[in-house]
C-alpha cells in the first residue's frame, strides 16, 4: 500500500469527491452499477459525504495526510488505526487506490463493497440506506467556523495502533470549502453541509482498546467523534445516544453520513450540537457471519462460554436492534410471533422471564430476546447480561424432565391449539390433487390426493406447493429512498419513502442480516401428517409409497443424512458403524435406497401389512412384518429381488426399541457385522401413531431418532397431546431445523410458554405450517363440501341407577376412600400417598362397573388400594369384602340343573297360564331378567331385589307386593329364561335364537337360580344387545372397557345370554389379535360382539364392520374414548354409528365426566397411569372427584 501517493493526487484536484477515496471496485465501469439509486442521487448531488468503507478509509487516511493536516490531527493519529477489515481482499485495496487515482472527477459513489466473498449478496449491492435519526453531540472544540447548521460531518472511531483518520474533504461540488488554519472559508451554503465520509473500519474480531486515553477505556470505547468535512474535529456523539453505533461501526456493518442540524454559532467545549445521522447498511453486514452457528449444531448452544464470535454477534444484534428502534425502521413483514412479542412489550416479558432464572443460569437465548429491538438497553448493559447469561449446559439435563404444570396446555391454550391447526391449514384446501400411480388400487378421495401432492412435494423438495412463509425468526425490511438533498424535506409517512424493491431481512434473535428471503425451509424431507383419526392416513401414506419409489442415489442421499449426523455428536457413531460394517459384510448395494420402514404399535402391524397388500397391485409393493424373535437380517431381506423383493418393512415400536438396545451394545464391537435395522439407509421412515415418541427421553424415542432414512414421516392424529414439548420430539425425529434442537425449541417455545408468552403458540403455528398437514372430518373442500362424508354418529349417554346392593357396596367404598383421602390431605400426606389414592380411585371406578371387580387383585396398585381401604376403618375390615362376597354369594352355584324338577314343572305351568303379561308390576316396563317369586308372581330381577332391600331397610316383611304372600327371600327367587321367539319377516314363521323354526306359541322356558352376580351396567348392556338382536340379527358391536377383569365378566354374561363374542386385549399375541379382527370381520349369521380393552384396542384398529359402540366406563381423557369410537366411525363406515356410554348415577363417573369436559389438567398422563409428575394439579382434581370442593347438589343428573 502506498497511501501517500493517492493523497497527493487527490489533493491536486481539490474538487474531487470523497468517492475518490472509495473507489467502488477495480473497474471504473462498475461505479454505475454499484451505486443504488439512492447512492447515485447522492453522488450526483454531492451534497453529502458518504461513509467510508474500509478500503476507502485507508485512502481517506492518506488523503488527510495529503492535506498536510497532520498538524491538526497529530494527536489523534497516534491512536487511530487504519485497519483494513480482515476479510478484505488486498486486491480491492489496490484497486481502490488505482481507481481513486483514476477517477477523481467521477460522481461520488457509495462506499464500495469491500468483500466479494458472499454469494448471497448481489454483486451490485454496495449499501442500503436504512434511515436517519437525530442525535445529540457535544462539542469538543472551541471557536467559530467549525460548523454551521447544514455542515456535513464525518464520523470516526478512534482506533489504537496507528492513526487512521479518515476524513475526507467534503464534496468539492458542494462548495469551495477551504480551510485555512481551521477556519472555514465558505461553504456553499445552499445545499446541506459538506460531504464528509468516514468509513469506520474495524475488523470485527476484536475491539482494540484505545491506548491513548487510559483513564476511561470503557468510555473511550464508546466514543464516536465527528469532524467537519475539512477534517477538523468538532465533537463527539453523546454516549447514551450513540453507543450502540460503536460496535456496528467497528465491525463495518453500517456507515454513517451526517450533517449538522443545529449548533451554536460559536462552539464552546461541551456545547450541544444536533446532528442528523444517516445510516447505511454496508455490504459487509450481509456477508455470511462466520460463526459456529446453530446451524452447525446444537453444540453451539451448549457451550459453556460465548466465543468471541458469539459475543460479537450478540453485540451486533443488540446494536442493530437499538439502531432499528432509534431510526424507527419497521418491518414490512414480520411473523406473528415477533409482532406479538412486540405488542406485549418485549421488554416486559423479557424482564419477567429473566426473573425466572437465577442469575448465572439464565439461558442465553432468553437473554437474547431481552435485547430485542424495542428495548432501549445500552449495549454495555447487554454486555453485562450476556456475561451472566453464559449458558450452563448442565441446565438442559435438569430442564428436561421438569415438566411442570405451566408447561401444559390449559383450556384456552388447547382451544388456541385448534386455531393454530386451523391457521396452518389455511389454503390447504386449494392444494392440487395428485393421482396415485396405477399400482395403487384404492381410489383416493380428493383431500387424500391433496395430501399426496403435499407429501410428494415435501419429499421431493418442491416448496412451491404451499406459499413460502418467512422464516419465523426473520423480519423483512426495506431500504428507504433518500430524499434528494436540497429538496424540501417532505414530511412523509414512513411507508412512502421505503423502497419496496430493495428489501433486506433481519433476524432479531441472532443479529444476522440477509438480502435474500429466508424461508422457513429446512432440509428435512417429510413431515407430520396429522389428519384427524379415520381420515385414511395409512391409505395416503401407502399411495405415497407407490408414488415415490426410489430415493436419490447414495451419493446424493448423503447430504440430508450426514448433515444431521454432524450436528449431533451421537450420530457420529452411526457413521462409524457404517465404516465398520463396510469391511466385513457384503458390499452394500450402491443403488438408491428404496425401502420404507413403517414403525407402528404392535396391534397395527398386521393391519398395515394387510392394507398395503390390499391397496397394491399384486407384486408392485410388498411388505414384510419384521418383529418377534425371528428377525432376519435387514440387509439380506432388502437385497432380495424378484418375487421376494421387499419394499416395506413393518415393525413395532417395541421391536425397534429392543433392536436399538442391541445395536447400541454391539455396534462398537470389532466383530459387529451389521444387518441391524440401524445399518440400513431407508428411503422413507414412517412412524404411525407417532405420539408414541412424544417423550423425547424415552428409549423408544431415541430409537426412532437414530434411524437412518432420507425421508421421515410422522403420522398422528394428535401430534400435541398434552404439552407443546410433545411436538418437539416429532420435530427432532423429522430433523427439522432449527426446531429439532431441544435448546432451540425450548428457548422459543417452551420457555416463552412458561412465561405465558403468546409467542410460544405462534412459534408452534409457524413450525406446523411448514411441516404439518392436518385436516379434520368437519373441514370442507374448496367447493364447500365436507371432505369426509361420514355417516351420522349418535352418542347416547345412558345414566343408570345402581341396584340397591351395588349402591351399598359403592357407598361403603366411597365413604372410606373419601375419609381416607381427607385424612391424608389434612395431614399433608396426600402427595406422598399419591399412588394409593389413585388406587382407591381405581377401586371406585371398578366398583361402578361391577362390585366383584373390587375384590380383584390384578396389580400391586390394587393391593395398595385394598390396604388403604382396609386400614383405618377398624372393625369394618372385611366388612366390605363380606358385602361383596354376599353380593357374589347368590351366584356361587348358579346352575339351571339344580332346580327341583317338580317345582319347575309347576312353575312352567303357572307361567304358561299367565303368558300374556310381560310387564313388570314395579317398573312398568317389559320384564328384564325375569325372576319368579315363590307365589309365581314375576318381575324384573332388579325391581324385586330392590324391593326386598327396601323392605329390609324399613324393617318390614318383604311380602309379595301383589299377593302379600311371604316373606320373600332373595334365595327364593328363581330366574326364568325364555328362548325368545321372533317372527321371521320373510316366512312368517317363528324362529328361535338358533334359527330353528318353531310353531307359534311354542315356549321354551328354563328356570334357574337367580344369578345375582351381575351389575347394573352389565344388565343394561345385555338388555340393549338383546333388543338390538331383535332388530338386526347380524349386528356387530364393540364393547370397550378399561378393565380386562370386567371384560371377563362381560364374557360370561354374554355367553349366558347366548350372544357370540370375541375378545381383543393386550395379553394377546399379534397373531391372535389379527385372527380376532379377521374373525370379527367375517360375515356371521348372528350378532357378534367384540370385547376390547380400551388400552390395547383404542388406537389404530379399523373396525368399520361394526356400527355399534358401547363404552362401559369412563376414561380420564375424553380423547382416548374418542379414539376408541373412531375405530368404527371412520373412512369405510357407511352405516350410522351408535355409541352408548354407560354412566352410573351419583358416582365418581359423574365427576370424571365433568373433568373430562372441563379439559383441565387431569387430562394428563399421571392419572392415566403414567409418570408421577403434575401431582399438585391432579390432587385438586382428585378433590373434585371426591366431591370435596364443589356443590354436589347441582347437576344431579348423573
Amino acid at each position: 500500500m502506498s497511501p501517500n501517493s493517492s493523497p497527493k493526487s487527490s489533493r491536486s484536484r481539490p474538487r474531487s469527491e470523497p468517492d475518490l477515496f472509495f473507489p467502488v471496485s477495480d473497474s471504473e465501469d462498475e461505479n454505475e452499477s454499484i451505486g443504488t439509486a439512492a447512492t447515485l442521487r447522492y453522488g450526483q448531488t454531492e451534497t453529502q459525504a458518504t461513509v467510508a468503507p474500509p478500503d476507502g478509509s485507508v485512502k481517506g487516511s492518506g488523503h488527510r495526510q495529503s492535506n498536510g493536516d497532520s498538524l491538526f490531527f497529530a494527536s489523534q493519529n497516534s491512536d487511530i488505526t487504519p485497519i483494513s477489515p480482515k476479510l478484505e481482499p488486498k486486491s480491492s485495496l489496490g484497486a481502490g487506490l488505482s481507481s481513486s487515482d483514476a477517477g477523481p472527477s467521477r460522481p461520488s459513489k457509495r462506499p464500495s463493497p469491500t468483500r466479494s466473498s458472499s454469494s448471497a449478496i448481489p454483486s451490485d449491492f454496495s449499501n442500503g440506506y436504512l434511515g436517519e435519526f437525530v442525535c445529540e453531540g457535544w462539542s469538543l472544540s472551541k471557536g467559530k467556523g467549525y460548523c454551521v447548521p447544514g455542515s456535513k460531518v464525518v464520523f470516526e472511531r478512534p482506533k489504537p495502533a496507528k492513526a487512521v483518520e479518515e476524513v475526507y474533504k467534503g464534496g468539492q461540488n458542494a462548495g469551495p470549502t477551504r480551510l485555512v488554519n481551521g477556519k472555514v472559508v465558505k461553504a456553499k451554503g445552499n445545499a446541506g453541509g459538506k460531504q464528509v465520509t468516514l468509513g469506520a473500519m474495524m475488523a470485527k474480531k476484536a475491539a482494540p482498546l484505545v491506548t491513548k486515553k487510559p483513564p476511561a477505556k470503557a468510555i473511550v470505547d464508546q466514543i464516536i467523534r465527528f469532524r467537519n468535512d475539512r477534517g477538523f474535529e468538532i465533537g463527539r456523539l453523546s454516549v447514551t445516544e450513540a453507543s450502540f453505533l460503536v460496535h456496528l461501526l467497528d465491525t463495518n456493518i453500517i456507515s454513517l453520513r451526517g450533517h449538522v442540524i443545529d449548533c451554536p454559532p460559536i462552539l464552546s467545549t461541551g456545547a450541544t450540537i444536533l446532528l442528523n445521522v444517516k445510516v447505511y447498511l454496508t455490504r459487509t453486514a450481509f456477508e455470511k457471519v462466520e460463526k459456529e452457528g446453530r446451524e452447525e449444531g446444537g453444540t453451539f448452544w451448549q457451550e459453556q462460554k460465548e466465543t468471541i464470535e458469539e459475543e460479537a454477534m450478540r453485540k451486533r444484534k443488540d446494536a442493530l436492534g437499538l439502531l432499528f428502534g432509534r431510526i424507527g425502521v419497521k418491518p414490512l413483514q414480520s411473523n406473528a410471533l415477533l409482532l406479538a412479542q412486540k405488542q406485549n412489550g418485549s421488554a416486559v416479558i423479557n424482564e419477567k422471564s429473566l426473573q425466572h432464572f437465577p442469575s448465572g443460569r439464565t439461558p442465553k437465548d432468553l437473554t437474547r430476546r431481552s435485547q430485542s429491538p424495542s428495548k432501549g438497553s445500552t449495549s454495555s448493559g447487554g454486555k453485562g447480561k450476556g456475561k451472566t447469561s453464559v449458558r450452563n449446559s448442565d441446565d438442559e439435563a435438569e430442564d428436561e424432565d421438569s415438566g411442570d404444570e405451566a408447561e401444559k396446555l390449559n383450556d384456552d391454550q388447547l382451544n388456541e391449539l385448534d386455531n393454530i391447526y386451523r391457521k396452518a391449514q389455511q389454503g390447504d384446501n386449494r392444494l392440487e390433487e395428485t393421482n396415485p400411480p396405477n399400482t395403487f388400487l384404492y381410489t383416493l378421495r380428493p383431500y387424500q390426493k391433496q395430501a399426496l401432492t403435499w407429501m410428494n412435494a415435501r419429499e421431493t423438495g418442491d416448496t412451491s406447493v404451499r406459499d413460502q412463509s418467512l422464516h419465523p425468526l426473520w423480519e423483512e425490511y426495506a431500504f428507504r429512498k433518500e430524499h434528494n438533498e436540497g429538496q424540501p424535506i417532505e414530511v412523509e409517512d414512513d411507508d412512502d419513502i421505503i423502497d419496496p424493491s430493495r428489501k433486506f431481512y433481519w433476524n432479531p434473535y441472532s443479529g444476522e442480516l440477509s438480502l435474500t428471503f429466508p424461508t422457513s425451509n429446512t432440509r428435512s424431507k417429510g413431515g407430520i401428517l396429522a389428519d384427524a383419526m379415520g381420515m385414511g392416513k395409512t391409505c395416503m401414506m401407502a399411495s405415497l409409497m407407490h408414488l415415490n419409489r426410489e430415493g436419490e442415489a447414495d451419493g446424493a442421499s448423503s447430504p440430508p443424512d450426514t448433515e444431521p449426523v454432524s450436528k449431533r455428536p451421537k450420530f457420529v457413531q452411526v457413521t462409524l458403524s457404517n465404516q465398520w460394517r463396510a469391511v466385513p459384510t457384503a458390499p452394500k448395494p450402491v443403488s438408491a435406497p428404496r425401502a420404507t420402514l413403517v414403525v407402528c404399535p404392535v396391534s397395527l402391524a398386521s393391519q398395515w401389512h394387510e392394507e398395503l397388500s390390499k391397496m397394491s397391485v399384486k407384486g408392485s409393493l410388498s411388505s414384510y412384518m419384521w418383529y418377534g424373535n425371528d428377525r432376519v437380517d435387514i440387509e439380506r431381506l432388502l437385497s432380495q429381488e424378484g418375487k421376494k423383493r421387499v419394499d416395506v418393512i413393518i415393525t413395532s415400536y417395541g421391536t425397534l426399541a429392543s433392536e436399538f438396545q442391541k445395536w447400541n451394545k454391539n455396534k462398537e464391537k470389532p466383530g459387529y457385522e451389521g444387518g441391524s435395522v440401524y445399518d440400513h439407509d431407508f428411503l422413507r421412515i414412517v412412524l404411525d401413531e407417532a405420539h408414541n415418541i412424544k417423550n423425547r427421553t424415552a428409549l423408544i424415542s431415541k430409537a426412532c431418532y437414530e434411524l437412518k432414512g432420507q425421508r421421515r414421516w410422522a403420522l398422528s392424529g394428535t401430534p400435541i397431546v398434552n404439552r407443546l414439548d410433545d411436538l418437539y420430539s416429532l420435530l427432532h425425529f423429522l430433523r427439522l431445523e432449527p426446531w429439532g434442537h431441544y435448546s432451540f425449541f425450548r428457548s422459543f417455545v417452551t420457555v416463552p410458554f412458561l412465561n405465558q408468552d403468546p409467542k410460544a403458540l405462534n412459534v408452534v403455528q409457524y413450525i406446523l405450517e411448514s411441516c404439518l398437514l392436518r385436516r379434520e372430518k368437519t373441514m370442507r373442500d374448496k367447493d364447500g363440501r365436507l371432505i369426509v362424508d361420514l355417516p351420522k354418529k349418535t352418542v347416547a349417554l345412558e345414566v343408570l341407577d345402581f341396584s340397591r346392593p351395588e349402591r351399598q357396596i359403592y357407598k361403603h367404598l366411597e365413604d372410606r376412600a373419601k375419609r381416607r383421602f381427607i385424612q391424608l390431605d389434612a395431614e399433608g400426606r396426600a402427595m406422598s400417598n399419591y399412588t394409593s389414592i389413585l388406587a382407591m380411585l381405581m377401586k371406585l371406578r371398578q366398583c361402578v362397573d361391577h362390585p366383584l371387580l373390587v375384590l380383584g387383585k390384578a396389580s400391586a396398585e390394587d393391593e395398595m388400594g385394598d390396604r388403604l381401604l382396609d386400614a383405618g376403618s377398624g372393625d369394618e375390615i372385611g366388612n366390605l369384602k363380606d358385602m361383596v362376597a354376599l353380593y357374589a354369594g347368590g351366584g356361587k352355584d348358579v346352575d339351571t340343573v339344580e332346580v327341583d324338577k317338580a317345582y319347575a314343572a309347576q312353575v312352567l305351568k303357572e307361567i304358561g297360564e299367565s303368558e300374556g303379561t310381560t310387564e313388570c308390576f314395579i317398573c312398568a316396563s317389559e320384564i328384564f331378567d325375569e325372576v319368579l317369586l315363590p307365589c309365581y308372581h314375576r318381575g324384573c330381577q332388579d325391581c324385586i331385589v330392590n324391593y326386598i332391600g327396601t323392605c329390609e331397610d324399613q324393617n318390614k316383611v318383604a311380602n309379595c307386593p301383589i299377593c302379600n304372600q311371604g316373606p320373600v327371600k332373595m334365595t327364593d327367587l328363581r330366574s326364568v329364561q325364555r328362548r325368545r321367539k321372533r317372527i321371521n319377516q320373510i316366512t312368517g314363521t317363528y324362529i328361535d335364537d338358533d334359527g330353528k323354526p318353531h310353531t307359534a306359541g311354542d315356549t321354551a322356558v328354563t328356570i334357574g337360580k337367580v344369578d345375582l352376580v351381575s351389575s347394573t351396567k352389565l344388565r343394561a348392556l345385555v338388555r340393549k344387545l338383546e333388543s338390538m338382536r331383535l332388530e338386526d340379527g347380524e349386528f356387530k358391536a364393540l364393547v370397550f372397557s378399561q378393565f380386562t377383569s370386567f371384560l371377563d365378566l362381560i364374557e360370561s354374561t354374554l355367553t349366558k345370554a347366548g350372544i357370540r363374542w370375541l375378545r381383543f386385549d393386550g395379553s394377546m399375541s399379534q397373531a391372535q389379535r389379527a385372527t380376532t379382527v379377521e374373525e370379527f370381520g367375517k360375515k356371521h349369521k348372528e350378532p357378534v360382539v367384540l370385547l376390547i380393552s380400551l388400552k390395547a384396542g383404542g388406537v389404530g384398529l379399523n373396525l368399520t364392520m361394526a356400527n355399534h359402540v358401547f363404552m362401559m366406563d369412563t376414561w380420564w381423557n375424553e380423547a382416548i374414548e374418542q379414539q376408541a369410537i373412531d375405530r368404527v366411525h371412520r373412512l369405510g363406515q357407511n352405516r350410522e354409528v351408535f355409541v352408548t356410554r354407560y354412566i352410573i348415577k351419583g358416582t365418581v363417573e359423574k365427576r370424571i365426566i365433568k373433568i373430562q369436559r372441563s379439559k383441565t389438567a387431569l387430562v394428563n398422563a399421571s392419572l392415566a397411569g403414567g409418570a408421577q409428575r403434575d401431582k399438585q394439579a391432579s390432587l385438586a382434581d382428585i378433590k373434585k372427584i371426591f366431591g370435596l370442593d364443589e356443590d354436589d347438589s347441582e347437576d344431579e343428573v348423573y
Partner: protein
Amino acid sequence: MSLPKRILKETERLMADSPPGITAAPKDDNLRHFDVTVAGPGQSPYEGGIFKLELFLPEEYPMNPPKVRFLTRIYHPNIDKLGRICLDILKDKWSPALQIRTVLLSIQALLGAPNPDDPLANDVAQHWKENEKAAIETAREWTRKYAN
C-alpha cells in the same frame, strides 16, 4: 331429572282413562306433582262435592308410597284439618304393586266408608261416634260449603 318409565306410563293411563269421579293431572313444572279431584261417592255425606287433593310421588316411588293430601276442607274422621289422610296403604301397607290409580280409588272409597275407630281427626271421630247423624249432617254442610 328424568322420570322413570313407570311414572310416565301411569300418568299416561290416568290421563287417557281416569277412573269414574276421579281426575289427576301432573303439574307443568313438576311431573311428580299431581292435581287431583275426587268426587264424593254417592250415598255418602260427600255426594255432590268435588274435593281437590294434591299427590306427590317421592323419589323412591314406587318403593315408597305417594304422598297425598286433601286441599278442600272436609269433615271426615280419617282426614284432619290439614287434609292429611289416614289410610294404611299410604303407610305401612304400601306395596309397589299399587299405583296412583289404586290409591285414589282407595281414597274415594274411604269417603264412602269413614272409620271413626281409627281416627285422625279426633274431634270429628268423637262427633261421629256420639252422634253419627249430626256428624253426617255437618259433613254434608261442609261439602256444600267447601266442595263445590
